[in-house]
């Protein structure tokens, strides 16, 4: 064998792993690496889901392990779907979702649009605006609880100043009409910056030359806004809506701190209600059925939404 350059190159090339570990093909090695992840996925996601589906057909209670578990068929599902109180919780959740997303998108986009215009100190303003979302929801809940206090709360005094009402004449957290809005206000205050940041990223991704071309074509600013800015930011906006929608569907801590679900059950969102059923009343089977119904609802809505998002992105 002569010492040719090809031989030297072959000797310098590290051998393929499969050749080193005898008896293992590339596919087997790939499985070895992927298997732990698949196992974790099965253990953490798939198995609990299947187990939850199984429990949803039983009268199991996690705090009564010595009690006989009976399969009750679809009774849990039937009870949930015919329970008017649960539909009211769903309604409260839908109200909360719709209005928080509406205000957060509207204000978040407006702020992003303003911040995106070059002016002195816009970085400082961005930092200030972003501060609320960095706080813990529990802290924010307590903080706003004081602001809403009818006797000493700043919020009531500000409203009273502009309306001429007595500050203690209205209760943001104690009134059936105002309590849902008080939560919308706090969530909007806290999470609008998140939407703003996403919109800002969208706005900054639009190349300047598109606007320059529009200027050359003498397109008005308004036309540029509706034909360039909005369509190009739309995928980002839709992503923001998806993120906020999923987050707000699970909203728990902020509402618990502010109203505890009250007054009555006015602000009892499905997440709070589900927690009560599962970990306070300990109706595990019933709560499992409840969780499955919510899962199917969210999964269905999210799938439709993601399809729409993909279509917008393809345009």
């Amino acid at each position: 064998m002569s010492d040719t350059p090809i031989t030297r190159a072959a000797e310098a090339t590290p051998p393929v792993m499969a050749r080193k570990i005898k008896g293992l093909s590339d596919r087997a090695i790939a499985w070895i690496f992927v298997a732990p992840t698949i196992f974790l996925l099965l253990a953490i996601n798939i198995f609990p889901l299947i187990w939850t589906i199984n429990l949803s057909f039983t009268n199991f209670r996690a705090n009564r392990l010595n009690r006989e578990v009976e399969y009750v068929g679809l009774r849990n599902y039937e009870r949930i779907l015919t329970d008017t109180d649960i539909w009211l919780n769903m309604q409260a959740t839908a109200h909360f979702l719709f209005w928080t997303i509406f205000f957060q998108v509207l204000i978040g986009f407006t702020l992003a649009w303003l911040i995106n215009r070059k002016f002195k100190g816009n970085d400082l303003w961005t930092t200030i605006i972003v501060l609320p979302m960095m706080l813990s929801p529990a802290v924010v809940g307590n903080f706003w609880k004081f602001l809403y206090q009818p006797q000493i709360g700043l919020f009531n005094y500000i409203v009273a100043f502009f309306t001429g009402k007595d500050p203690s004449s209205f209760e943001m957290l104690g009134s059936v009409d105002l309590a849902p809005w008080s939560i919308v206000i706090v969530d909007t205050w806290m999470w609008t910056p998140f939407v703003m940041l996403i919109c800002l990223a969208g706005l900054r991704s639009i190349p300047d030359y598109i606007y320059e071309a529009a200027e050359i074509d003498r397109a008005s600013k308004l036309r540029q806004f509706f034909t360039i800015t909005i369509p190009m930011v739309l995928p980002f906006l839709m992503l923001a809506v998806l993120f906020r929608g999923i987050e707000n569907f699970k909203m728990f801590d902020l509402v618990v701190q502010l109203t505890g679900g009250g007054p009555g059950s006015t602000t009892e969102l499905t997440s709070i209600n589900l927690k009560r059923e599962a970990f306070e009343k300990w109706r595990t089977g019933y709560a499992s059925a409840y969780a499955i119904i919510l899962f199917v609802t969210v999964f269905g809505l999210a799938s439709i939404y993601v399809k729409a998002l993909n279509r917008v992105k393809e345009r």
Partner: protein
Amino acid sequence: MKFSKLTTVSALSLAAAGMSSAAQAEELTLCWAAWDPANALVELSKEFEAESGHTMSFEFIPWPNFADRMLNELNSGGKLCDLLIGDSQWIGGGAENGHYVKLNDFFDAESISMGDFADATVYAYSTWPKGTPNYYALPAMGDANGWFYRKDWFARDDIKAAFKEATGRDLAEPTTQKELLETAQFFQGREIDGQTVYGAAIFTERGSEGITMGVTSALYPWGFKYENTPGEYDMEGAVNSPEAVEALEFYKEFYETATPPGYTNSYMGESLDAFKSGQVAMAMNWFAFFPGLYADPNTGGEKIDFFVNPPQNQAGSTLGGQGISVVAYSDKQDAALEYIKWFANPEVQQKWWDLGGYSAHKAVLESPEFVDSAPFAGDFLEAMGAVQDFWQEPAYAELLLAMQKRVHDYVVADQGTAQEALDKLIEDWTETFEDEGKL
């Protein structure tokens, strides 16, 4: 040789004795809620440590999380607590789910008689099924819901005159529920020393048990019953009786016309804050807080006095308080039982009362000095004579949360009528008892 043998045997004996005493000395953990009496118990337990050689550590959970935290601990078979001072409502679940050690044999062996403790506390804190001689706890902390008021305001001539003019009677501790409301309404929005004050702080909390404990303070004096026949779960006509409807309407009127603005979700802490900040003339709260209230430098001492929950159709107070149980999952049950034995001692019980805990031992309660031993002692005795407790069923949490929802919907959220609220409550409770196989 003999000397050497003797030395060896002696050394071995000493070592064995030392090892045996080391094995017996345990570190016990006692779990309870974080409040004033818990601090008194820490102080009291120092004597137990000195006497027994065991050391005590404490796990005190804030009240709003107490039930969640402790019931999770029990349900998961946790070993955190060797001793637990658990709420009276937990006794059914504690017994049926095997969380608590049954204490009958221990009581018999140690000659601890339940007859030495106040009957109401034994019934409420220790027995399951109710009223049977099956004991799962020793009465540890007697408690009931009571009232306190601004004695200094009640004593002022200008206020007394205004009250007389407004109501036609003298301003004094209310003797009926209706007088209580009338007095609270008199103070509502009144200006005293340049500050607007309000009638009374009552319980309206939604999340745990607050509003139920408040509402039952009105329901019991009106004659509310959970069942027509004890043990039969026949609630129709009892839970929603005309008296119960009237009492619930009364509580709603109280909330709407005689409480400070913003007290829509208030419980123990909010009641104390309202009183200590000089916002209210009266407040409801558990007797457990009364020693601390009396000691308060601003609103305690001569400025405060106490009264038992006033009767209406009958006497009735909402039961608080707890028994002390040995947790079945503890590895140190013997040492935990030693603590119970020590705690049941009448002398220890007297010290417990002196430190601010509420003893349920008859030797303390029936002592001639007891009534004058604190400004609230007589009221405490009177309250404990007419206490009623919520369901103590294993499914108590489900029953409690149903009541929380129904009464908060009506009282605070102003939805529906009192009759509808109680009718719906029966529906909820019926479903629970059906699931439990009791109906």
